[in-house]
């Protein structure tokens, strides 16, 4: 029992500080009656979550159906494009420039443009998420694949290794730590992109739900929506981190 405590000491600290904060929040609002328009008690938020669980989860699932495919496609395409292009200087450089350009377009702007072309349906959101996730993944993978130790270079040349061998036996395993890291961070980006893009309209999703509720001053539902997003995000992120640890057991950090 003590050993469990020791290894997860910091995790427990994080979780308990969060819980403590929520408890203090509740107590504070019970003592000082702040206007309901400004702050909601956690207990009320929880009650709302339970009461409106059906519609909240339905909308959340809709958004999740935008997030996960988009994240997956974006990451996969990013890695694939980097693998296809890393040997060809001109192609990579051109792609990198394009990605810097597209990345410079603020998300809202990109949403508006693509929304104008495709309409604001689910596919548009998936496309947006894929685009936003694609570029950091692509750039990170590309830079990993093009950086190789002089020592490794010499050894591989002395074995007359073919580029295919070099890619699969050395470059890809070596780039796994950074790659999985950026894919993990992209989970957050994907969530953010999906919810934000819903603000421009759509056929469902938790972002639109929050937008409509906020307008009606139904702040509890906004908070409940935020809670759902936070829960999903935590699960998503830590699942990917768990998978990362399995895939990259040699990583020390």
């Amino acid at each position, binding site marked *: 029992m003590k050993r469990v405590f020791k290894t997860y000491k910091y995790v427990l600290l994080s979780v308990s500080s969060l819980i403590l904060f929520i408890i203090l929040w509740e107590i504070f609002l019970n003592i000082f009656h702040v206007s309901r328009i400004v702050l909601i008690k956690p207990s009320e938020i929880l009650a709302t979550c339970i009461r409106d669980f059906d519609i909240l989860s339905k909308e959340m699932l809709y958004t999740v159906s935008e997030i996960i495919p988009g994240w997956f496609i974006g990451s996969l395409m990013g890695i694939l494009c980097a693998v296809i292009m890393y040997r060809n200087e001109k192609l990579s450089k051109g792609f990198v420039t394009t990605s810097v350009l597209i990345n410079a377009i603020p998300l809202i702007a990109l949403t508006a443009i693509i929304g104008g072309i495709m309409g604001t349906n689910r596919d548009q959101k998936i496309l947006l998420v894929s685009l936003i996730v694609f570029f950091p993944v692509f750039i990170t993978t590309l830079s990993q694949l093009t950086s190789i130790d002089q020592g490794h270079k010499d050894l591989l040349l002395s074995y007359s290794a*073919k580029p295919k061998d070099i890619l699969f036996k050395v470059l890809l395993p070596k780039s796994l730590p950074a790659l999985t890291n950026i894919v993990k961070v992209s989970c957050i980006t994907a969530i953010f992109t999906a919810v934000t893009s819903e603000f421009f309209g759509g056929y469902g999703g938790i972002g639109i739900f929050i937008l409509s509720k906020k307008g009606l001053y139904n702040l509890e539902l906004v908070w409940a929506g935020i809670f759902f997003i936070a829960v999903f995000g935590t699960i998503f992120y830590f699942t990917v981190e768990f998978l990362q640890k399995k895939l990259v057991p040699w990583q020390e950090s």
Partner: protein
Amino acid sequence: MENSKAIHIDSLSALFDGNGKHLKVLENINFTVSSGSFVSIIGPSGCGKSTLFRLISGLPTKDTCKAEGKIRVNGKKPETASKDREIGLVLQKPTLLEWRTVSGNMQLPLEIMGYSKGSIEKKVSDLLKLLDLQGYEKYRPSELSGGMQQKVSIGRALAYNPDLLLMDEPFAALDEINRRKMNNEIINIWKKTKKTILFVTHSIEEAVYLSQKVIILRNKPSTIHKIVNIDLEYPRSKVQNSSKYFKYIKEIREYLNEASI
């Protein structure tokens, strides 16, 4: 076809020419290394040791480097000998792949060269026995000391049975005791496998301890200053306190001093 000259170098010169720089790295290098012998190269910094090493091993040198003259490894050009898997390299840093185990690292060249699975397994277990690494098969490089990592990298170099082993200051990062241990190991391996070993080092004592012949390079001009034949018996641990041993060290030190002027 057996060639008594494992390495034959004739009138080798190398030049860095480009970017406005015009630098003679090597000038008129001539020496031979006979098959099955253990030869060391020693010299002051900047005398072109690494360029010479790269030229013999068939590794690409800098774009601005132009070489003239003749290098023959086993009667072939170095690149050809490398392609024919006759050269094994051990570099200063072990450069093991951190995601592979010890056996995984040792079989890397075998996988790349397309050996069958069965022969790979056999070869790896032979190597583990040769290097006294049995029991360490599943260890990861991060779990090994520097000396052990270098052992693994020597095993990797020997995996495809090259005739020639080129070593570039492989034990430079080890402490005195471990370095001596590794020196004894490499002599063991040499005696058992009867390979030709060309060993670049910074340490005079190590050169005398290990080799039959020591080539002393100099700079300005970057040529061979002297070649000293070490006429001592193996294992050198027996004679390392003899006056003859120290005489050799003194002689080489004097030559090295001259070479550094």
